[in-house]
């Protein structure tokens, strides 16, 4: 071979070798976008293939079953799932939607995406199909309503698919050892504080160091404080669109809330500020009596260890109307650029079916969002799910509009400042209010 041509020949050969690697591989998970009729983007631990949980040894059927079922119901249709982790789900979703990589998106940050005009309004589909929204648990559809760029009123851009709720949980065994009455189903802040104080110190039975209460001083601090504030009858503020929002971060109730949290910090492990110190929570050697702002992820380890009788669930702090705490979970939304919107709508309807909701719950442990779930044997077997399902229906809806924006980071930083003694309560809240308001006005 002519040596002069060697580089060119090598380049062509390399390109030929690399090219097949760039093409979609038949049968490979989430890699058939060009050939698909419908692509669903989901977030979480879900898998396309069957798997076995390393903790519970529970075998889960993969999403291939959903694919087969939906394709059976819609002959000629091909659907694919793109499953991403919770870690960095916001930028990942943003990247996917910017590249029109899916038709239906699991979208916990629906407010931000709808405001960018990236989502299809669902009301016309609902009306055309006379779709019955009452299949969902109360409060859930309202909770996900938000504004598109042109809307004057809250609109439906997404419908619930995965349930979630915030609740308070306590260790019944520690309560008994300390001789303290169990928490009531709807505890007040005062009740929780009083009982937490009684259970800090050397356990009278085991002699171990116990802590009365726990909340993580990082990440969710702003949401925990807001729930304490609701327990004192306060409200985060008013408005849903940025131009209408008025915050109450420096309200009297918020001050009460932060004072309560500071007092409770004496009954918690020293490292709570850094989200540590609760390593034994939900285990047989637990040393914390009460934990606030808990989530649905707790159910799996509790039942796996057969500790369901030891860790009862009660509701978060509620205001006079019986409402309180962050509305959470995930809905499904249709991307504005989807080429298969009608089919995407069919999938959203399918996601509210008993089949799909049962699949998510029984195979993957996701809390169902439809009312009929309370009748399922698999739900009734797990008594703790009853208050968990209730918690979804009495959260503050629509979501706190500032929960995924700067005001949350600002409030979090200031509350952490107060909890670590670098700021006074009044100063922290005053600064949080001023900085957040300034941010809203200048955005």
């Amino acid at each position, binding site marked *: 071979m002519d040596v002069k041509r060697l580089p060119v020949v090598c380049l062509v050969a390399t390109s030929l070798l690399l090219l097949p690697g760039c093409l979609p591989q038949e049968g490979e998970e989430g890699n058939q976008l060009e050939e698909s009729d419908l692509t669903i983007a989901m977030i979480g631990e879900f898998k396309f293939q069957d798997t076995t949980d390393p903790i519970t040894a529970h075998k889960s059927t993969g999403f291939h079953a959903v694919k087969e079922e939906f394709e059976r119901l819609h002959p000629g249709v091909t659907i694919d799932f793109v499953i991403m982790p919770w870690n960095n789900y916001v930028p990942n979703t943003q990247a996917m939607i910017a590249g029109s990589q899916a038709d239906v998106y699991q979208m916990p940050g629906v407010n931000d995406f709808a405001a960018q005009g990236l989502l299809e309004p669902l009301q016309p589909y609902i009306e055309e199909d006379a779709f019955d929204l009452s299949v969902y648990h109360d409060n859930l559809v309202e909770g996900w309503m938000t504004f598109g760029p042109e809307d004057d009123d809250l609109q439906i851009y997404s419908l619930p698919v995965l349930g979630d709720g915030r609740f308070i949980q306590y260790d019944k065994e520690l309560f008994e050892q300390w001789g303290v009455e169990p928490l009531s189903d709807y505890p007040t802040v005062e009740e929780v504080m009083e009982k937490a104080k009684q259970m800090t110190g050397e356990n009278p039975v085991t002699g171990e160091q116990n802590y009365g209460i726990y909340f993580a001083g*990082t*990440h969710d601090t702003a949401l925990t404080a807001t729930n304490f504030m609701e327990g004192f009858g306060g409200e985060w503020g008013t408005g849903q669109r940025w131009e209408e929002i008025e915050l109450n971060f420096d309200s009297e109730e918020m001050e009460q809330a932060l004072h309560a949290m500071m007092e409770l910090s004496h009954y918690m492990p020293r*490292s709570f*500020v*850094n989200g*540590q110190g609760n390593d034994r929570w939900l285990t047989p050697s637990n040393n914390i009596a009460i934990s606030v702002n808990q989530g649905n992820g707790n159910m799996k380890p509790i039942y796996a260890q057969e500790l369901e009788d030891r860790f009862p669930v009660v509701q978060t702090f509620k205001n006079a109307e019986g409402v309180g705490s962050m509305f959470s979970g995930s809905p499904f939304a249709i991307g504005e650029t989807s080429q298969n919107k009608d089919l995407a709508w069919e999938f959203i309807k399918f996601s509210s079916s008993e089949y799909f909701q049962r699949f998510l719950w029984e195979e993957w442990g996701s809390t169902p969002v439809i009312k009929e779930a309370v009748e399922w044997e698999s739900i009734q077997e797990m008594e703790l799910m009853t208050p968990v399902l209730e918690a979804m229906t009495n959260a503050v809806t629509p979501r706190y509009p500032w929960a995924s924006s*700067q005001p949350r980071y600002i409030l979090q930083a200031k509350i952490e400042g107060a909890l*670590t003694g670098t700021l006074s309560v009044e100063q922290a809240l005053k600064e949080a209010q001023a900085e957040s308001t300034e941010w809203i006005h200048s955005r």
Partner: protein
Amino acid sequence: MKTGVEMPANVQTRRNKSIKSTLSWYVFLLPTFLGVACFIVYPVFESFRLSFYNSNGTIETWVGLTNYQRVLSQGAFWNAVYNTFYIAFFQLLLAIPIGFILASMINRINRFKSVFKVMFFLPNVTSIVAAAMIFMFVLQPEVGLINHVLDTLGLPTSPWLSDPGTSKWGVILLTIWHWIGFVIIICLANLQAISPELYEASEIDGATGFQQWLFITIPNMAGTFAFLIIMGWISGLQRFQEIFVLGGAGGSPGRSLQTMVALIYERGFGGFEFGIASAITVLLFLIILLFTVLNIKLTRLKL
């Protein structure tokens, strides 16, 4: 009509060959150039462009220098700059001398030299994310290893990451532990390159071991120190992963750990403020550029 001087045929052929050969190699380099253009040049210019817009990722509005004005007037930005410099400064101040001393000791021993090299270098090959997760427990104030050791020795313990006053020192400990192996290996490479004749001559003159270290070894290490300082500053100013693990994007507690890159992440992906995030990115770029030039001048490093 022909103009100019006509070249001999053999010269023309040689030139053609040379052009062809050059072209072939440029074709060979094309994929790399394309990669650089797509993944380095374009993002840099796009980030610079975005810094003049109010952008949530899809909707963009021209705002001129407003983003810079907003960023520079915010306490959170200057706090992030302070945190970044604080951690980087103390990491360099402690890791380079300690690393050099350890390298000098390893260089003097005859047995187990490789064992020590491997032992000290192991942290550097560990993922910083994994190391940070381990350090969460090492620095745990109640049951963490460091406080346990301090307590056993009768020394005062620290809340480490649970207090804004000490959290940065927790990170400094982690970064020193992680980086020191690299410092040792680089220092060892230079130590072994110093001519033994210098030491032999000094021995004849009656110099002690310490004097040799002070007057021969250290001056000959100047280039290595300059290299470590510049590389250390650049990576220190880009610090993110360990901060994100230990304190989240917000740099908990109370923004005490928030670095400039963490602030970029918070503003960009925590609230879709891509214009603001880009403005901080440009400012970070300018700071790194300024510092690198300054460091090169001060350390007189020849590139």
